[in-house]
Structures are given as structure tokens and as C-alpha cells.
């Protein structure tokens, strides 16, 4: 048989590790009221700065210790995950939809549409992103929706650039020309022929962007520009932890670890998904 089948890779451990952590964190966030051992807002001055469970002086039920107001750190991290994930999903999807659509149009149609969109992207990217975010939130006012809008408004360009380049590459392929000979319309070709070939990149970027959104949200919370309620956020906990680093290092270290693990997992998960989605690499 004159046939050569590409060897299929198994599910990579990368996908399992990253996906496992994200699933765990996501489930914990969704079911926070059920799984959190304590009330994240309950203060108790008798319990302030308890160390994590393996150190002497730890209290049962306060696994990762407490902060300077005696609030349970683990519970605060779990509840903080809710805001982190809401922002991650909403902001990344919004940035993805806007950026990918414009990138696809720009890369496929070329000409003046491409010139206009590319110029806008260039101008947009000239702003330093964190400053841009702070500025936007300052203008929009603090709150969950302004954080989401700010991240989407800043980061759609990331999608636009990558998807534009990929689309241009695909549009030059012979299968697109074949579709034109067959008589398909331009928009039909863009959506049915080209789009499926850029989906793996969109998925990878989307996951990466969720990680970025988590960081940006943390930064905004850190500088006190995010959610203006008492609800715990990862960035907010880090900001508080920084103040008591010498008395209670865990209040700084655990949220940092949570943040880093989540962000890394998002980017690794995206890469692994890309290879699984791509029929050639798969």
C-alpha cells in the first residue's frame, strides 16, 4: 500500500499536568462556598498570622495559615480564584473574538482593509500595556467589568497580529485557489477553508491570553484598581502579604505560587491543545 501514516502522539504529560491544575483550581473556585474550610472574610484577632500546617503553632482547619487579620489564607485563595477565572475567561474570549475576526479579515482580504487594520494595531501596540490598563480602569472606574474591558481592549492586538500572519500564509496555499476555481465565494472560503486551519493557533493564544488576563487582574488588584469590594483577589492578597513578609511570609508566597502555577498552566495547556488540534502535528 503506498500510504504513510504519521505516527500519533499520545496525550502529553504536559497536557495532563497543566489541565489537571486548571481543572482543580476551576472546580475549587466554582464550588468555593462548599470547599473552602473557613469564611474568607471572617476576621479573628486570636488567630492572626497562624503558620501553615506543617509548622509549629499551626491550627487544624487553617491549612495555609492566616493573614494579619486572622483570615484563613486557603479560603481566601479559593475565593480569589473566582474573580481570577471570571476575568480570565471573559477578557480572553472578548479579546479573542475581536482580534481574531479582524486578523482573519486583514490577512485574507489584504488591500485597504489590511492596511487600515494593521495601522490601528501598530498605533495600539505603541502604548505600554500595563500603563494603558491602569489608565483605562482609572477612566472606566474600578469594578469587574472595567477590568475585563480594559484587558480585552488592550490585548486584542495580540490575536490580530498572529491570526493575520497565519491567515496570509494559508491564503497563499493552493487549496484556497482551488476553492476559488470551484466557485466558492470569498467569505465562504475564509470561513470554511481558511478558518479551520488557524483554529489551533487561536486556541493556543486564547489559553495564553487567559493566563495573561490573570496576571493583569492581579496587577490591577495589587495597585488597588481592580474590584473595589472586600472580595479576596489574588493580587489583593499579594499586596497585603507584601506588607507582612517578615512576620508571615506565607501570605505572600502561597498566592504567588498559585498565580504562577495558573499562568504557566494556561500557556502550557494552550500549546498542548494546539498540537492536538492540528491535524498535521497530531
Amino acid at each position, binding site marked *: 500500500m503506498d500510504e504513510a501514516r504519521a505516527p500519533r502522539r499520545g496525550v502529553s504529560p504536559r497536557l495532563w499536568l497543566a489541565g489537571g491544575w486548571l481543572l482543580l483550581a476551576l472546580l475549587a473556585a466554582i464550588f468555593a462556598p462548599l470547599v473552602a474550610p473557613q469564611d474568607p472574610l471572617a476576621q479573628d484577632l486570636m488567630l492572626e498570622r497562624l503558620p501553615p500546617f506543617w509548622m509549629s503553632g499551626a491550627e487544624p482547619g487553617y491549612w495555609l495559615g492566616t493573614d494579619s487579620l486572622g483570615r484563613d489564607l486557603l479560603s481566601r485563595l479559593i475565593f480569589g480564584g473566582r474573580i481570577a477565572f471570571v476575568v480570565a475567561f471573559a477578557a480572553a474570549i472578548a479579546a479573542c473574538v475581536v482580534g481574531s475576526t479582524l486578523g482573519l479579515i486583514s490577512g485574507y482580504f489584504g488591500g485597504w482593509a489590511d492596511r487600515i487594520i494593521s495601522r490601528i494595531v501598530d498605533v495600539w501596540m505603541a502604548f505600554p500595556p500595563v500603563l494603558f490598563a491602569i489608565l483605562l480602569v482609572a477612566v472606566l472606574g474600578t469594578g469587574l467589568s472595567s477590568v475585563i474591558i480594559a484587558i480585552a481592549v488592550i490585548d486584542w492586538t495580540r490575536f490580530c497580529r498572529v491570526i493575520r500572519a497565519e491567515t496570509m500564509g494559508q491564503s497563499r496555499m493552493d487549496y484556497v485557489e482551488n476553492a476559488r476555481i470551484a466557485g466558492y465565494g470569498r467569505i465562504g472560503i475564509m470561513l470554511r*477553508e481558511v478558518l479551520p486551519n488557524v483554529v489551533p493557533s487561536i486556541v493556543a493564544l486564547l489559553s495564553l491570553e487567559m493566563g495573561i488576563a490573570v496576571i493583569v487582574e492581579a496587577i490591577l488588584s495589587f495597585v488597588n484598581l481592580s474590584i473595589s469590594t472586600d472580595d479576596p483577589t489574588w493580587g489583593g492578597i499579594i499586596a497585603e502579604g507584601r506588607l507582612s513578609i517578615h512576620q508571615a511570609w506565607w501570605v505572600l508566597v502561597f498566592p504567588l505560587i498559585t498565580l504562577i502555577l495558573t499562568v504557566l498552566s494556561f500557556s502550557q495547556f494552550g500549546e498542548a491543545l494546539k498540537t492536538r488540534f492540528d491535524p498535521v502535528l497530531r
Partner: protein
Amino acid sequence: MSACLDIRDLSAVLPNGQRVLRSVSLCVQPGEVRALVGESGAGKTMIGKAVLGVLPSSVRIVEGDMMLEGEDLGRLQPKARRTLIGARTALIPQDPLTALNPSRRIGSQMTDRLVRILGWSGERADTRIRQLLDEVQIRDPDRVLKSYPHELSGGMRQRVLIAAAFAAEPRLIVADEPTTALDVTVQKQILRLIVQLQREHGTAILFVTHDLGVVAKISQKVSVLYAGKVVEEAETAALFASPQHPYTRALMAATPRYTDPFASLKPVDEAVLAGLATEIAAADQAWRRPHG
């Protein structure tokens, strides 16, 4: 009976004004195989793309007519032209890998065209595709239809594309060096398949190649192209028996014989090329005069 494809005095220019097609005339009768030979860069692919309406945006047709089964392509509205070309023509491309969409299964790619362009029912399209796969001697259609392009070998992919090209019963197929990207052992099989299907379906083929050996085997008529200009046109047998143009003779002399490929492999004679350059310059000047 009108010709299947009739190109008259077709000229196309690049943005810098340079002509890539120089008053090309070429006529393909129904059911005929017309070979188009010439060295790399002669404009063979350009002619095919002009016919199929997919010229690069930088190339502009400035003169000439193209008639597809008696319909003047230049006179039709873009939409009507697309529909006509889609229904009456097909392409067998040079590179079977990039000509298939890497992220879609073979089956859906093949039936899609029949369903969406010709309005066939899914069942009818499926039956038709299986029939064609059988004709191109694919023995396990179920597996092939479920595969992605990269899961098939080059030869299999080209069979799939041949089947796809004939599926909608086009009147004209443009085959642009359909065997160049393939293994030598597979090339012959593929050529034989194309010829066989062409006879059975009575399809006219514009066969682009730079291989005179292939020309001799499959075509009834030949056009020899140099720098976008048809320098000689003849019945295949007559061309090989008595080539008229010095360039054609030089091209034949430059083609390696199978007995001793290296001994006879020599470049086209300098004097012939110089003669061609003068001929083309004269033609360009004559053409420019009325065109400003």
C-alpha cells in the same frame, strides 16, 4: 461545433508594464489533449490561471479574448464567470499536498464541491465520489474518505485530486505539471490514469509540462511557449517529425535520451536564444505601437 477553449491574442502585463503573456492564441477542441511546453518561467502556469480566473492580482489582462465553450469570459459579470468556470473546468495541480485543505477530511472536501456548487444531494455526491475513486484505482475508499491529506502518500493524494477534478464532469481540465512533484515510479501510473479518464470522460485537457517525453505520449497537439509567446504550434506527431522553429529544435536537442541521458544533456544553443530575444523585442515593439 465551437472549441472547448479558444484564447485569442491574450496579453497580460505586470505593474511595471512588462508583458508576461505576449498575444497568446491557443485553441483546445472538445475531448482533445493540448500540451503546453516551455522552460521554467515561460508563462505556462500564467495561461492556466488566466483561463481559470485566478491570476495573481499583480497581473493584468490588457488584451485578448477567452472563450469557454463559446461563452466570452471577458464579457460575463464576475459572478456569472465564476459559476461558469466552476461548472465547466477543473484543475489538476502540481503539488497535491498544498492543493488539499490540511484540516479537512478528504471525503468532505470532495463532496462539498458537488453539493455546494452544483447543488447535488449528499447521497448522490457520495456515490459519485466513490465511483471516481474506483476509477482512479483507489481500493479502500472508506479509509481514504475519512483521512486527512497528510495521512496519504503523494501518489494517493494526486489520485484523489484527479478523481475530484473529473467528478463534476468538467469540459476542460487544466493539468499543471501534475506529475512533477511525484516519485518517478508513481509518475507513469498517474499519467496513465489521467489519459484513461480523459478518454472515458471525453474531457479536453490543457496539459502544462516541460517534459517533451510526456508531450509525445499524451497529447494530440502542442504549443511551444517561450517568454510568454507561442513560438510554434503543431500536431504532436508533426512537431516531433519536423520541428519548424529553431527554439523547438533546440528544446528537443536539449531533452535527454533515455539511453544515454548525460551525453545528450546540453543547454539550448546561445544563437537560438539570441534569435528569440530579437524576435520577442520586435514583437513587443510592434505591439506597443498601437497600444501607446
